[in-house]
């Protein structure tokens, strides 16, 4: 698997060196979540009620932020042709790109979640479930996102198009992610919602790379 590791290593190196996408995703996540107390007012009860929903929606939007560039720069400068010609199966290359997208945007957002949760007065009891949900759910966002990113290669204003394509696909993850965090409050533990999230991940893990790779082959013809 040297090719698989090479893609991830290079993406991480680029992300660190250019400092762009990861830092931007976290700042967007924190700032967007910060808007809600101003918008709905600082009452702790109201905020606590909606906190997990806010965290999930803003995490989803933060993941979308860098999504259109998942394959775009590689496609524009010809690197995608080299990836296609490498011995690595294109599906696995997509998986590598998803993993690096998640490491660059999903993981930092996950790390910033406790701070944002505190800011939104989330009940500390539901924080572990919220984190667990995000841990399973954010890779799902990256995986579904890869389909949108691959399909919109070559389209004008691809960034907006990606969001329109991908947002509806992410709704199930959102529902069950928030469900898991909220269920923790009434002691039903929310493991059911986590199981559904896990099923979503198990579904997306093999199928999204297949779909995205097919779209990439089309883009490279």
């Amino acid at each position, binding site marked *: 698997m040297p090719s698989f590791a090479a893609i991830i290593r290079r993406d991480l190196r*680029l992300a660190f060196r250019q400092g762009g996408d990861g830092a931007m995703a976290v700042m967007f996540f924190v700032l967007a979540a910060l808007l809600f107390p101003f918008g709905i007012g600082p009452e702790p009860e109201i905020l606590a009620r909606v906190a997990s929903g806010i965290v999930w929606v803003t995490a989803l939007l933060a993941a979308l932020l860098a999504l259109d560039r998942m394959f775009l*720069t590689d496609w524009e*400068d010809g690197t995608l042709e080299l*990836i296609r*010609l490498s*011995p690595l199966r294109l599906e696995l290359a997509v998986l590598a790109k998803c993993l690096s997208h998640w490491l660059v945007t999903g993981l930092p957002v996950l790390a910033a979640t406790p701070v944002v949760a505190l800011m939104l007065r989330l009940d500390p009891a539901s924080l572990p479930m919220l984190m667990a949900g995000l841990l399973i759910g954010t890779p799902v966002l990256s995986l579904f996102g890869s389909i949108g990113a691959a399909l919109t290669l070559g389209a004008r204003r691809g960034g907006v198009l990606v969001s329109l394509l991908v947002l509806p696909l992410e709704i199930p993850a959102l529902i069950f992610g928030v469900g898991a965090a909220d269920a923790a409050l009434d002691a039903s533990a929310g493991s059911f919602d986590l199981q559904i999230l896990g099923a979503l991940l198990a579904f997306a893990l093999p199928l999204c790379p297949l779909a995205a790779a097919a779209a990439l082959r089309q883009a490279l013809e």
Partner: protein
Amino acid sequence: MATNLQGHFTGTGLGAVRGEKRLFSGLDFRLAPGAALVLAGPNGSGKSSLLRLMAGFGRPSAGHFAWDGTEVARDAEAHRARLHYVGHQDGLKPALTVTETLRFWAALGGTPLTDPETALAPLGLAALAGTPCRFLSSGQRRRLALSRLSVRPAPLWLLDEPAVGLDTAALAALSALIRHHRKGGGSVVLSTHQGITLDDAQTLSLADFPWRRPDLPAADLDW
């Protein structure tokens, strides 16, 4: 690498369509080990398209390619392993250095690079090893893209206008690389040979198709 380093690369009855336009049809070629094939034809006649089809990006609308008699489409993976394709785009990231770029290409190809110097030296890039690609001139970028050819041996080189932006020294170096490659039994396909010294190269003309002749009425273009 398990790939056999020599072989006959052939194309039979090749045809391609782009959009609504027919590019070429009924093309045949046969490339023996050590041979060079130059694609000739005006701009837009499908030279790049043919090279991309040879590399396995998409399928020809008619005909097929074969390697030593075995149809290439049957084992696309083996075909990818035996070729180097250098297209119009250089595949460089502004933030990565010359060596890092080369290492990435080598690792992507499955053979981690032990000595970047040997791949950089032939095209005169050794002094630029630590330079980020954003500081390279367009000729230097082209040379770096071409140094991919030295990263791992491959019997088939597909070069799309490799000479663009190269100075005389780099052209001589590229000619020497190609000569060395052919001496070792490798074959090469180029979309132009301007500035590159090639001994006894075959030519495949993409120019003389009836639908591209201006003296024929447009009504004859039906297919």
